[in-house]
């Protein structure tokens, strides 16, 4: 019997720890929440998003907060780590809504995680603004009522390099090899959009290979492309795989004239890990500090001086998403989810990422540019209006 008493004491202790865990927000604060991958494979993205979200909230608070029913209130942002696990994103979102009583949510990153949180938010009728989720992948899940996405549209991203090659006059034998991972956007971009665009622009697809998202060896894929003489290689993979592909191509002695690596080649860690091998690689981008939008250059400068790291386009997407949400709360002048949701729908303003206006699918498109890594820096080579450098061709 005594043992049972002791164990129930242990259980009581546990329960009281639960109580201690309940954090107290000031009663007047406007609470918004986000679940981000701060550990696990996507921790790189998560840290940029965290910075972007926090900065937007800090700026609003410094300016006095948001006026709700006439009273100015501060905004409290609660961020939880979902460890790159969709199960955790879902449970974090639930807890933020039910325990911390957030009035609205900001999204995670990559379709799997965003979906998990968005489904919870949509069902709980809490507005969520997210970035970091390609629009077709976002739309394919369901017709959203409360979730809004600001990101690029895969078909535009896919078309960017073809357009760039055409306008910049890249002379190749027009033979294309497509390598893509089997994630949602990899399959859409690599499996459907690129082959169709290739035909449209007069290219011959000599190889279309799919591989698992976390694949480590690419020797056969590379060997096949090399033997078929493809001078243009289009890749859609995440960063570890992007690095592996570039290294293994070099080790196999295969250097096409044009190498485009979507997704994976975007972050600075790609260029840092590869050093000289990263030169000449093309990647689509949706933001750059040189864009002519309000606050773009300052955002990158602030990031670099605060964190001593190179900036990434993800700080802009998250910063803008948070600003859109905060502006909507201010426009609604209320913490009622329905009013905030209605205000988000009416968004029509220019942010650091450009003009944001949601269509009937709750998506807002970001413009695409083509970037090329040159000496560890991303240089915009297309379109002409946004150019910050010259196109290095062919790949060496």
């Amino acid at each position: 019997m005594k043992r049972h008493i002791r164990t129930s004491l242990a259980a009581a202790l546990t329960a009281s720890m639960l109580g201690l865990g309940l954090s107290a927000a000031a009663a007047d604060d406007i609470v918004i929440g986000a679940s981000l991958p701060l550990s696990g494979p996507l921790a790189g993205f998560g840290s940029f998003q965290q910075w972007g979200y926090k900065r937007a909230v800090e700026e609003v608070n410094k300016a006095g907060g948001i006026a709700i029913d006439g009273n100015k209130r501060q905004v409290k942002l609660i961020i939880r780590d979902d460890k790159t696990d969709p199960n955790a994103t879902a449970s974090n979102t639930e807890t933020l809504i039910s325990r911390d009583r957030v009035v609205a949510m900001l999204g995670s990153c990559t379709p799997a995680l965003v979906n998990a949180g968005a489904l919870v938010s949509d069902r709980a009728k809490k507005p969520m603004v997210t970035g970091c989720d390609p629009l077709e992948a976002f739309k394919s899940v369901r017709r959203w009522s409360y979730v809004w996405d600001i990101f690029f549209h895969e078909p535009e991203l896919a078309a960017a390099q073809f357009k760039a090659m055409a306008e910049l006059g890249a002379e190749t034998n027009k033979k294309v090899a497509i390598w893509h991972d089997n994630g949602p956007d990899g399959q859409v971009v690599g499996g459907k959009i690129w082959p169709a665009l290739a035909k449209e622009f007069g290219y011959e697809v000599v190889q279309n290979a799919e591989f698992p998202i976390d694949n480590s060896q690419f020797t056969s894929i590379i060997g096949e492309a090399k033997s078929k003489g493809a001078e243009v290689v289009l890749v859609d993979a995440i960063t570890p795989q992007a690095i592996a592909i570039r290294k293994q191509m070099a080790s196999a002695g295969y250097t096409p004239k044009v190498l485009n690596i979507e997704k994976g080649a975007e972050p600075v860690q790609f260029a840092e890990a590869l050093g000289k091998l990263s030169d000449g690689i093309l990647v689509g981008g949706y933001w750059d500090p040189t864009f002519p939008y309000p606050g773009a250059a300052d955002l990158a400068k602030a990031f670099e001086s605060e964190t001593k790291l190179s900036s990434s386009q993800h700080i802009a997407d998250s910063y803008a998403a948070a600003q859109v949400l905060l502006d909507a709360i201010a426009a609604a002048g209320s913490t009622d989810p329905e009013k905030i949701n209605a205000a988000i729908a009416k968004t029509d303003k220019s942010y650091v990422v450009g003009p944001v206006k949601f269509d009937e699918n709750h998506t807002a498109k970001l413009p695409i540019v083509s970037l090329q890594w040159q000496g560890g820096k991303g240089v915009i080579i297309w379109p002409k209006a946004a150019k910050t450098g010259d196109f290095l061709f062919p790949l060496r």
Partner: protein
Amino acid sequence: MLDVSTISSTIVSGVLLGGILALTALGLSIVLGVMRLVNLAHGDFLVVGAYAGLFFLQFTGIDPLLGVPAVAVFVGLLALPVYRLLLAPLANRGAEAQMMTMFAVSIILENAFVLAFSADTRSIARDYATVPLTLGPVTFPLIYLIGFVISVSLILAVHWLVSATAFGRDLRASAVDAEAAATLGVDVKRVQMLTFALGAACAGVGGTLIGAAFQFSPSSGAAYLLNSLAVVVLGGLGSVIGTLVGGIALGTLQSIGGLALGDGYRDLVGMAVFLLVLAFRPDGFLARGRT
């Protein structure tokens, strides 16, 4: 596509890569043989070695492959307190307690990597690491050959250590029967500690090679742990030469699998082979008894 050149290149690449895999698995094998411990943090020791090689290059400018001895010593030294403080007290508690402790060490290490070095994927970028070497009809990455040579040299050195020195004799005695060895005057605790450190040092060197040939990140450890387990099972527990053979076998099988079925199936082939061997010959193909 399937011409002589491609097939022979694939097989040679597989053999060379297998040598590197063998080195990464060697530490796991000897620790398993002597301490009956499945070191679940083994993959993370590899990653420690990879980071060590990367920063060695950054701070001294010396090529990490030349700095391999330094990396080995560094990782080995790190392993000593891990053994002394965490494993030694659990020596009489059965295998699961030590295994779970190493598992906890593994998750702490991964978290520490993220905190210290950020979650970025890294690679040791050296020019010689990404050029091909062509010998007749056969083409393969030069780094594979370099890695193979380093790996085999180290494996043979460890083999000599285990079979021809006093320490090696003590090690083998402890592996076969720790209690009997203790009664014969072998300081089993010391042998185990040094074996653990040796295993970690080998893992560290393997990690540097991986870092140069491929890439790594804080969470890379798990995948390498599984590969290493497969090598150990293929080659036989505690057998140093067996690990070399097991590694080469796995490397070759994976490469052939990748060629035949597609690169995405390499890991699957590896796991399938692993399970088959585990099911039918858990002591490994070469086991005649334990070394």
